[in-house]
């Protein structure tokens, strides 16, 4: 069994021995490529407007844009166009928000 115990110095010498370096076999390129694919979520510092939109739950976003649409129709603008614009903007933002969540996931 344990006939030749290893002493502290021998153990520390083995532990301190530097391991052979691991070659960067595309590892760092992989990290950077991942960051380039999701720059907005990777930096963690989106602008305040993006943060507001990104962080807002989509039902709230829908309510905001629907309300905007209703208000717009009460004004003297071309009501239909304004409503359509608001709805289209809402759809785009919801889509962007969904994409951002997919990237985070």
């Amino acid at each position, binding site marked *: *069994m*344990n006939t030749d115990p290893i002493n502290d110095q021998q153990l520390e010498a083995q*532990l301190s*021995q530097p391991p052979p370096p691991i*070659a960067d076999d595309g*590892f760092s390129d992989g990290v*950077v490529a991942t*960051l380039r694919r999701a720059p907005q979520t990777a*930096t*963690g510092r989106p602008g305040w407007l993006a943060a507001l939109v990104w962080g807002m739950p989509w039902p709230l976003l829908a309510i905001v844009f629907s309300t905007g649409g209703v208000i717009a129709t009460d004004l003297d603008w071309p009501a239909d166009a304004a409503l359509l614009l608001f709805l289209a903007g809402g759809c785009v933002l919801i889509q962007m928000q969904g994409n951002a969540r997919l990237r985070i996931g």
Partner: protein
Amino acid sequence: MDDLDLIQRATDEADLDAFGELVRRHQSHVRHFLRRLCAGDWHRADDLAQDAFLAAHRRLHAFDRKRAFSSWILGIAYNTFRNDRRAIRPAREWTGEDAGLAPTHAEAVAARLDLESAMRRLTSGEAAALTLCYQNGCSHDEAARVLGVPLGTLKSWVQRGKDRLRVLLSENTSS
């Protein structure tokens, strides 16, 4: 250009190439560290290393410039490992394959294989403490800060790890 310059460029100018250079400089010791903790499952270790660098990039603006980047990234790597451990998969049987070891100096290689096998029998805390203190040259204080444990715990991990390694390596030698 030193690490601090690269960090400054990566944060202030959102320069991904500068961050890539940081990854290139530190990937080897981060991957070594995680390979020790993952007990031979090198694919998992490399996945965790990538996650650690991505997390580091997200938190780079909060980096304390009085600290060494190498210690900071090892702390993130250790946290990444701990968070992932809940979904741990059984480690692959380690055969020394892909070890990247030079085939010369057969005795040194054999000793390292013995050490690596023995390391796999330690707890992750013991393996992390020994790797930081002996291979990465961290002081006990620094290693405790990296692992986020009290100094007393760190010292007991080092001592217990060494005691167990001594027994395991002696068994290997005598068999």
